[in-house]
């Protein structure tokens, strides 16, 4: 009986085309028989089927009728619902933390609600190779370049207020799982003066860092071997590590809630026009302007060109592939278009070790002048350690396999020397990830390429992109929407230095 009533209601409620009265008339006739079939229980399954069919068919009919009306989006061809829209204002290539941060800030800064149509194109929904989720998650202020220090300070402030920025109504607040454990840098005699200079720059910009003599170091961190340490610097505030996944998802969730369109697919080509201009020194420059982005759908031959006004290159380690598609790096010798985007993937290994006698909750992110680093992971006596290989021994980047010998040869000896407790450890896991390595100076590239008038870059962060993502996203959004940097001046990170081959190097102790 109740099934009948429901059907009745459904039909009455159904708005639209079919004259509802007639339908109800049709449907009411079996009512009289109902008592009968209830007593003769055999008839029931059949009738149920009949009603279900009818219900489904009616629904299909209604849909078809609605589709046939003018103004509906129906077409005789089947359309993949995951295809990106045909037009957008801004296409962000790369759905890593940088890409989503830019998307969020574009929406945050837009003046009219729904003023800019932003889509984020990501080729790998599992993020199996993205640097963001394979990183160590550290944030520090202990850089030497004022820009990097300011980026970190701004990002730390963002993370402190993360729920003001990225909180979504009626959803759980964001918990970054931030560990306020600080970074501890150890310098040898040779590099102590650099550390001192860096300390001055950092303090003058408001970072809370303290210098420690070996004696003070021993007192504060009794488990460190201070034999060959001349000076140490320790970050008191805003330094530590957090969960990269949480940050990525928080950006994504907020950006989507603000109207950013997410799309899975790979950018494989661009359609662009070239305008040839003559430079003051007589060189002919081909200025490219992207008209549309070709988005290839995953596991299929289908693709969709997306017309757009602006493209943002946030493809991380693989961002040079996008500029190759535009003919950058293959121009005539000596010209600007001959200079490729100096970003390439470099594989870095991270080892998880178990050591019950390790420094425990006391453990900061320790960075030794020998190049090794380690930090605590959780509370169960696990640590994460690694090192950057020397230039000549860069591992092969065709896959993400881990070289365990590297730990035995290069990491463990220095690690055990620095913290004797690590002599007894067990490697319990390891992974590898790609640095978006800037071969010129290992710093981010933020700005517009002189030969591509509508592609904005935010790439090449080489090992500190995650921590700078909130501030970098804001800077790129300013560049796009305001035309210049308004909060932090990041001119220096632009393309000028790359074309002039003037690296802006960090003066590190490592």
């Amino acid at each position: 009986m109740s099934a009948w009533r429901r059907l009745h209601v459904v039909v009455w409620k159904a708005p639209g085309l079919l004259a509802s009265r007639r339908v109800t008339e049709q449907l009411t006739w079996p009512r009289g028989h109902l008592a009968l079939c209830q007593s003769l229980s055999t008839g029931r399954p059949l009738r149920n089927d009949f009603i279900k069919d009818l219900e489904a068919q009616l629904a299909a009919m209604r849909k078809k009728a609605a589709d046939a009306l003018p103004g509906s989006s129906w077409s005789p061809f089947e359309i993949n619902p995951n295809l990106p829209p045909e037009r957008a204002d801004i296409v962000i290539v790369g759905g890593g933390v940088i890409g989503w941060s830019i998307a969020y800030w574009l929406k945050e800064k837009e003046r009219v609600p729904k003023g800019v149509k932003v889509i984020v194109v990501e080729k790998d929904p599992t993020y199996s190779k993205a640097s963001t989720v394979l990183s160590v998650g550290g944030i520090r202020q202990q850089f030497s370049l004022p820009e990097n220090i300011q980026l970190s300070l701004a990002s730390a402030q963002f993370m402190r207020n993360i729920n003001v920025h990225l909180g979504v109504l009626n959803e759980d607040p964001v918990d970054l799982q931030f560990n306020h454990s600080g970074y501890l840098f150890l310098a040898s005699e040779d590099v102590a003066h650099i550390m001192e200079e860096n300390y001055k720059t950092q303090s003058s910009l408001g970072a809370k860092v303290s210098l420690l003599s070996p004696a003070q170091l021993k007192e504060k961190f009794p488990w460190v071997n201070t034999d060959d340490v001349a000076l140490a610097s320790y970050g008191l505030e805003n330094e530590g590590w957090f969960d990269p996944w949480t940050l990525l998802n928080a950006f994504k969730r907020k950006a989507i809630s603000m109207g950013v369109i997410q799309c899975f697919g790979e950018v494989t080509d661009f359609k662009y026009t070239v305008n040839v201009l003559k430079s003051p020194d007589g060189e002919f420059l081909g200025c490219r302007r992207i008209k549309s982005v070709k988005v290839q759908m995953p596991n299929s031959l289908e693709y969709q060109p997306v017309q757009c006004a602006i493209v943002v290159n946030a493809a991380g380690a693989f961002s040079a592939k996008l500029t190759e598609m535009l003919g950058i790096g293959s121009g005539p010798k000596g010209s600007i278009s001959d200079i490729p985007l100096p970003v390439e993937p470099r594989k870095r290994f991270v080892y998880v070790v178990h050591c019950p006698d390790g420094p425990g909750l006391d453990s900061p992110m320790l960075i030794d002048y020998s190049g090794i680093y380690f930090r605590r992971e959780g509370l169960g006596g696990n640590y994460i350690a690694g090192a950057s290989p020397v230039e000549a021994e860069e591992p092969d980047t065709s896959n993400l396999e881990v070289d365990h010998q590297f730990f035995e040869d290069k990491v463990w000896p220095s690690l055990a020397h620095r913290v004797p407790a690590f002599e007894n450890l067990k490697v319990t896991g390891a992974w590898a990830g790609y640095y978006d390595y800037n071969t010129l100076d290992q710093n981010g590239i933020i700005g517009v390429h002189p030969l591509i008038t509508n592609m904005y870059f935010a790439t090449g962060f080489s090992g500190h992109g995650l921590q700078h993502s909130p501030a970098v996203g804001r800077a790129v959004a300013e560049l796009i929407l305001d035309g210049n940097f308004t909060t932090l001046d990041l001119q220096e990170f632009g393309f000028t230095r790359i074309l002039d081959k003037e690296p802006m190097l960090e003066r590190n102790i490592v």
Partner: protein
Amino acid sequence: MAALFSSLHRCCQRLALLRVARQLSSSSSVSRPPLHRRLLRFLTQRFYDVEELLEWSVRMKKEGIQKKNAYYGFTEQFYGSDIAAGHFVLNMRGGFRYTGQTDWFRANQRGKFNWDFLTYKDTPLEEVDMSYTVINYRGLDNLVGQQSLKTLSLRGCPEVDDWFLGRLHVFQNCLEELDISHCPQITTGGLAALRNLKGLRRLDVSSLPGISCPGLVIILLEEMLPHCQITATGYDHNLKQQDAEKM
């Protein structure tokens, strides 16, 4: 109609804010939000106006807290940083004691306090009790100048979080006693920052709902701060529960 709901919601939230700290033991067992919350959620899911209003009310609430935690620059200019700090504490309905004095200055239930504290010029504060107030990271600006602060109680402060603890290093040379019990936002990641307070003699970390496996955390804390006496009550329930899970 919607305005009514938002004000209703705001009242309830403000009440909940202070209550949350007091009801920690029960908070773990609460599963279903109260009726008015569910009703509001229902409405926000259906009407944009309600959602907008709610968002606005949440923002106003946060702004209100920020305002209360503003920097007392004006007072500082006229009376110096010590009195400014004292004024801030009293306005937040906390209490404090000057160095070398035995009497406490305290705000009463209705936020009224004795203005005599203005007569102590250039006397730093030695003990500050901010328990059950809405002090946050920003409000700490008013206290950082107090370099002879020995005791600080932040018991049951709903806005005290890990970043706040991370900033307590400014008292690394003076602070001896710290009470951060019943603070709902504190997690293990923030407790690690207490390593900078090497002079700490007494620490109360009772009933912090944000830390998982409190037993282990407290052992690690004791290892990290060997000269500090750590009080941690209110976790029996959790410990038992964990044992039960293991079995």
